[in-house]
């Protein structure tokens, strides 16, 4: 793990609603994630993990505070600049994968490349290489619904890394998988996807995969309440 931070969040505050209905979801949250690091954000339901994840990935504007990804101050950017930054710097793996059921696995993986204005055949060629990385080259022409949950998760990972992002965001990656498959997926990500030029942030409350984290950031009631460093994984 490098000491250089890929992302710096400073005093983030986010509330929803106004007046008496106001709910503060994130309170004065500051943290950093480093290149080569697998950082977990954990906490009970309603602790603000997902809100924090959305703010640091440039899809939910905070009420206060700033987020700097590499040298880009996210919340001083326009919507289109943010979209470009997400496309080029951040990869997402959603809890429900959100793969298009009417497209083939290969076409799903090619979406970020097509959004990057890559020519169709070239995008498919490259997408096939990413499917090979996640071990699903032979499933390229199948529709996602014909794949198992673990395989769909791998397709989502292939799609997330297809854009060569520096930061990968996983939202509850094991929530829809059985324990063994969930562990295998995270282990795979740790061994094959994480590298010194990339950081991975995982929001989870699945303690069975904590062993793969480099650091675990704990949240409660919108606050960061502490860190745990997994010394076993220190490189």
């Amino acid at each position: 793990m490098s000491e250089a931070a890929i992302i710096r969040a400073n005093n983030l505050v986010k509330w929803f609603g106004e007046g008496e209905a106001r709910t503060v979801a994130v309170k004065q949250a500051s943290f950093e994630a480093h290149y080569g690091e697998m950082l977990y954000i954990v906490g009970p339901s309603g602790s603000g993990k997902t809100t924090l994840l959305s703010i640091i990935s440039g899809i939910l504007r905070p009420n206060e505070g700033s987020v700097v990804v590499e040298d880009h101050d996210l919340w001083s950017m326009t919507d289109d600049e943010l979209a470009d930054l997400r496309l080029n710097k951040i990869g997402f793996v959603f809890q429900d994968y959100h793969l298009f059921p009417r497209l083939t696995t290969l076409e799903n993986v090619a979406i970020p490349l097509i959004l990057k204005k890559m020519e169709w055949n070239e995008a498919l060629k490259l997408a096939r290489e990413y499917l090979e990385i996640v071990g699903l080259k032979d499933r390229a022409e199948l529709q996602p619904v014909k794949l198992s949950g673990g395989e769909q998760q791998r397709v989502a990972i292939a799609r997330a890394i297809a854009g060569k992002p520096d930061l990968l965001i996983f939202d509850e990656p094991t929530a829809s998988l059985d324990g063994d498959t969930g562990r295998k997926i995270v282990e795979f990500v740790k061994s094959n996807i994480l590298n010194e030029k990339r950081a991975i942030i995982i929001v989870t409350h699945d303690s069975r995969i904590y062993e793969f984290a480099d650091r675990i950031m704990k949240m409660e009631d919108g606050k960061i309440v502490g860190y745990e460093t997994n010394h076993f994984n220190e490189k």
Partner: protein
Amino acid sequence: MKPVSGIYRIALKLLMNDKSKFTALLVGITFAVFLMVMMMSMFSGILARSCAPVYNIGAKVWVMDPAVNNTNSSIPMPDYILSASRSIPGVKYAVPLYFGSALLKLKDGTYQAATVVGLDDSTLFGRPEMIEGRIEDIFAENAFVVVKDAEFPKLENPKIGTEFEINDNRGTVVGIARAASSGLFGVPTLYTTYNRAITYIPSARFTTSYVLIEPKSDADIPGIQKAIAKLGYEALTRDQFVKKVSNFYTFKTGVGMNIMMMTAISFVVGLSISGQTFYTFILENIGKFGAMKAIGAKGNELIAMILAQAFVTSLIGYGLGVGAASTFIIIAKLRMPDYAAQLTFQTLGLALVMVMIIAGFSSYIGVRKVLQIQPFDIFRG
């Protein structure tokens, strides 16, 4: 690099691979286009037929009673109108035209209504194109020229020499002619001379249905119209007369309103089916569109995708609908010569505009929904 083609390809695959939705959309739009085109074609055909005599006679200026609102309901004018017309500066020549109806007794004893056109004896102005016989034979005793159109068989497919009775007068077919357009009312048309027409067919005190004027030049037409107006009558150019007849059928009979309503209903049906199906499609994929937004798709790219889906589907539906309507009209005309529908460029253009409105409406509700979805909602589930 082809910057947008990939996005469109993804968009179309998303929709077309959803076979049930795509089929429902296509069926809805095709059916709506079919109905709209059929309705407008029927109306167009009716209008064309209602104006058929104006085209067939071909005069540049028609003089008539101002109360005339369609060719068949001519109001006879006094003879001095013809004389007065001839004396108007700018008139090259003016001739009378008789236009009326008669009952013909055929050889088998049955009666058949027919339209009789009486052409000016000295010029035969407005004569039809002959396909059998010679037009000069119209001056022979009891001579009539029969128009070979969709109604021709109603006169038992007469040949040259065929005889019939018209108001106790003998009529003899001396020629078969071709007319540019068939009439609206499903009756055969006979041509004869003006004098024979007013002699054989009982008429009121006045006998001239129309005065047909050939101006020296088009620039003389406004002056001629003013001079005729001073006489208390109306002089209309061919286009003005066609417009007057069209307006009559469109606005003063039930035909126009009924067909317009049916067209509007077809449009609403297409709009509803297409809008509803497309909205359901967008709703089913809303999470995926949100995920695309999170990945980095811009608002305008998602709009482009939805527009591509709506407009390509609509254009395919338009093509199928027009194809179905054309096939129907062709088959109907082969089996029913009286069938009046005609497909015009205006009809196709208007149907295209309505389909584009359907596509625009469908995309609008889709675009609204997709732009409303926030990537944050995807994380929240």
